[in-house]
């Protein structure tokens, strides 16, 4: 490989997006690119952006599949708003993604993919190369398909196989632009295609050809360099939010000594948790793919009664179906982790897009007074920790817990500093002891108000639980009015008491000031980035990001009262803000909302915050 000296442009962060037809292999290309970034020490976050249909019509906007990588030499909090480098394999993907490209962005595209038919199918009136629509971008136009085929000519590869590897040509070009080494990708091919050695050769040749071609044409005048991030020392891996959630549950099962049971039904975007846990039978995980959402949660309730760390995973519509059963878990006071990977609603809504619109449902969406613990993860990697905490709180407090994540966290990936199990907090479920003469099904721990978990098979603890109201302490069926009042209060107080066991709400920035920005769940990255930008400008803005929602941390009111103005930002029409207003009626809480199936953009947040600071 010839090494010419190119000028280097050092960038703190870069967003790269790979887009093409559903079958173009954009997910693989994107993840290979991000793997290399990780190896050189960049922090990163990725997000796959694919259509709800598996194979939508070729060369149409509906069929565009994408993979976005945000990498940096400092901590990366989001998957990136606007794109610095766009790799667009056909006209449809160019047209549908141009709006995400920064002014001056580099766009690499395959000119072979542009003919009258594909241009028309993409919805263009004329070839975009011939009008001025691309003038503000740095276009790298390459006949990628032709060059890919040419590079494989000597191997006698059929044209279909050759065409299929054009994504590797584009990746090779990109590696040149970012001055990345090809070795680790070669190693990857060797592992992936162990059983098809011919594919190792093909992919290596094409990747190298792309690299060399970019070198020859000097695709960019300079190298884009993103140096290694200054990250906390430790062992790292890349992880998606859904896998992290699955692993957090496995970790909690191991720590607590309670075997893991998952009862679930496939639903986008939560299915990966079910698939991931299905792989880990060696850790004793029992995974039951049920006939429907209701059977998923009901089997989990049965498993919980039988002494398992029982979980069910779903998304919004599935949570609706599980509502009645959540009530059963609440009244039987059994531990149960319900993971809701939120998507756009109502009904089927936007299955592959993200929203935070199930908060009301998590808090209130059941018959009767039916409190549960509600917590929310805020990044793909901390899904591990919050899944673990959901399990810990649920078991220790004998109360169902809803963990809210969302499609962006679930599908997105981030670097994960691998924890040691020895460092994870202890989990001590209140197990009843065999032949305890004082055992009563609803006798409570005075501190937590949790009842004991008496596991079937244990001698001397036979008892019945069920959906009918029970007498406090004895657990006998009771319709006594005063008892129902007592039990309703107990169930609510038991959840409130969890506040004694969770950390105080942290504030990012000064603990008092002009504006407090409040957020929760998957919007952390965008809101944090917006607030830090403004803090750097010297503005009096602080940020409180909530992970614990029911109950709220004990200092919540104090935090809110220390600021002149509060704005609560959510990807819904104002569910957390109204919950806060209900708990702490204060006139100075405003809100900023978006319900488009899209994450917050940093600039729309800073615009709003600046406006609030300026208003008197």
């Amino acid at each position, binding site marked *: 490989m010839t090494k010419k000296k190119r000028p280097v442009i050092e960038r703190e962060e870069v967003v790269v997006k790979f887009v093409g037809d559903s079958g173009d292999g954009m997910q693989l290309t994107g993840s290979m690119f991000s793997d290399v970034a990780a190896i050189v020490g960049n922090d990163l976050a990725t997000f796959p952006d694919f259509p709800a249909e598996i194979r939508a019509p070729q060369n149409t906007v509906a069929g565009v599949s994408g993979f976005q990588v945000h990498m940096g030499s400092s901590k990366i909090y989001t998957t990136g708003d606007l794109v610095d480098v766009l790799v667009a394999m056909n006209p449809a993907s160019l047209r549908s993604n141009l709006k995400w490209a920064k002014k001056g962005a580099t766009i690499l595209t395959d000119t072979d993919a542009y003919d009258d038919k594909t241009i028309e199918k993409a919805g263009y009136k004329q070839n975009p190369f011939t009008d001025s629509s691309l003038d503000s971008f740095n276009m790298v136009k390459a006949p990628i398909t032709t060059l890919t085929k040419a590079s494989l000519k000597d191997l006698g590869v059929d044209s279909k196989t050759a065409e299929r590897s054009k994504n590797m040509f584009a990746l090779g070009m990109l590696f040149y632009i970012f001055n990345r080494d090809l070795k680790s990708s070669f190693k990857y091919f060797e592992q992936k295609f162990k059983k098809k050695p011919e594919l190792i050769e093909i992919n290596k040749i094409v990747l190298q050809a792309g690299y060399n071609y970019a070198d020859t044409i000097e695709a960019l005048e300079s190298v884009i360099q993103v140096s290694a991030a200054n990250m*906390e020392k430790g*062992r790292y891996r890349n992880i998606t939010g859904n896998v992290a959630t699955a692993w957090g549950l*496995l970790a909690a099962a191991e720590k607590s000594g309670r075997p893991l049971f998952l009862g679930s039904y496939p639903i986008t975007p939560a299915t990966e948790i079910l698939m991931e846990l299905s792989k880990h039978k*060696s850790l004793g995980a029992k995974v039951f793919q049920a006939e429907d959402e209701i*059977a998923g949660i009901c089997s989990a309730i049965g498993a919980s009664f039988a*002494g398992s760390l029982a979980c069910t995973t779903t998304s919004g519509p599935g949570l609706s179906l599980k509502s009645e059963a959540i009530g059963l878990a609440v009244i039987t006071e059994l531990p149960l982790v319900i993971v809701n990977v939120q998507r756009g609603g109502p009904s089927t809504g936007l299955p592959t897009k993200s929203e935070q619109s199930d908060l009301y449902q998590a808090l209130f969406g059941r018959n009767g007074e039916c409190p549960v613990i509600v917590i929310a993860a805020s990044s793909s990697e901390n899904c591990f920790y919050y899944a673990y905490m959901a399990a810990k709180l649920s078991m220790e407090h004998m109360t169902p817990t809803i963990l809210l994540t969302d499609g962006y966290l679930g599908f997105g990936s981030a670097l994960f500093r*691998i924890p040691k199990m020895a460092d994870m907090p202890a989990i001590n479920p209140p197990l009843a002891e065999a032949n305890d003469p004082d055992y009563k099904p609803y006798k409570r721990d005075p501190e937590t108000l949790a009842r004991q978990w008496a596991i079937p098979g244990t001698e001397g603890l036979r008892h019945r*639980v069920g*959906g009918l109201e029970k007498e406090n302490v004895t657990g006998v069926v009771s319709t006594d009015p005063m008892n129902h009042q007592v039990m309703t209060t107990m169930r609510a107080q038991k959840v409130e008491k969890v506040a004694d066991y969770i950390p105080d709400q942290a504030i990012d920035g000064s603990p008092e000031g002009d504006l407090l920005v409040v957020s929760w769940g998957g919007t952390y990255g965008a809101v944090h980035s917006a607030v830090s930008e403004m803090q750097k400008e010297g503005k009096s803005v602080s940020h409180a990001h909530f992970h614990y929602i029911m109950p709220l941390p004990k200092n919540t009111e104090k935090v809110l009262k220390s600021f002149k103005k509060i704005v609560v930002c959510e990807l819904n029409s104002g569910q957390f803000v109204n919950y806060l207003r209900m708990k702490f009626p204060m006139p100075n809480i405003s809100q900023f909302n978006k319900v488009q199936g899209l994450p917050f953009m940093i600039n729309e947040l800073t615009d709003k915050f600046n406006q609030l600071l300026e208003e008197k």
Partner: protein
Amino acid sequence: MDFINMTVERTNVQLTKADFESDQMVKWCPGCGGHAILSAVERVFPKIGYRKENFCMVSGIGCSSRFPYYVNTYGIHGIHGRAAAISTGVKIANPRLSVWTVTGDGDSLAIGGNHFIHVIRRNVDLNILLFNNQIYGLTKGQFSPTTPMGKVTKTSPMGTIEHPFNIGELVIGAQGTFFARVPDNNIALMTDCMFEAAKHDGTSVTEIMENCIIFADKAHAPVTGKDVKDETMLILKSGSPMVFGKNNEKGLILKDTMLEVVEIGKNGITIDDILVHDQYSQDPGIQLMLAKLAPPHFPMVFGVIRSAMYPTYDDLVEEQIKYAKETSKIKNVDDLLNSGDTWEI
């Protein structure tokens, strides 16, 4: 008859009926068939010989589903229609429990129909006691999926216009491995069938034709009534010819592809011509025909119609876990966290 699943721990003391009697008041109506079923369960549990702590009763909603409160075992009274799903979770979580699912015709065949067919298809090792009183009792008298067509109920003042399920046909159609049918007025037969159900590895469904004295009184009387039962009931015994009648003078034969009632001693028919019942046959062909028989042209058959050997879901779960544990490099969560692509910073 004596071999009982060894997965469930056995007791080393002789248990009695008293070990399973609950201190709770039984609140079924006087004359309800539930009382006899409860009595049969209390009799059969000590006979089965498992530790009393290893029994777990699970129910849904309806009159039948109050059952767990009336026996002294571990128990969950669930929500409407979901007993089969809850039971599945209990059994998968701990295969060492003997799980008994108590349900009714509304609970299992209407609102819980989906769970019912799928638990059967999976052959989870559960014992389902399905109290079939052909009516919704707890909501005071609406028709159910087993109410005979044309029956006047509170929601069918002009008679129902729905075809009822035949439970045996549904069970076998859902790949069921065990089906028995018993009347609630024959405790000995009920006890025998429950014992057979316990013995069977896999989902057993025992349909108990239960009388609801308030809303569907004598619904089963045309079949199980003392005055008619000699002619209308055929009690099966595996390995024996299928005969009925006051003096066992009638029997079933297979003519071409259909069952037919014949009289022994007439037209040259002898006992040797009578079809012999095989509850263990894997092929459900004859068993399905038997399950569907009904007066007036045939007797209805009772006892164990089918108990075929197939692997159980819970055994296969355990087998896969055992194999994975033996062969996987990932032995604990630390191994998992550090598996695949990781790097040091």
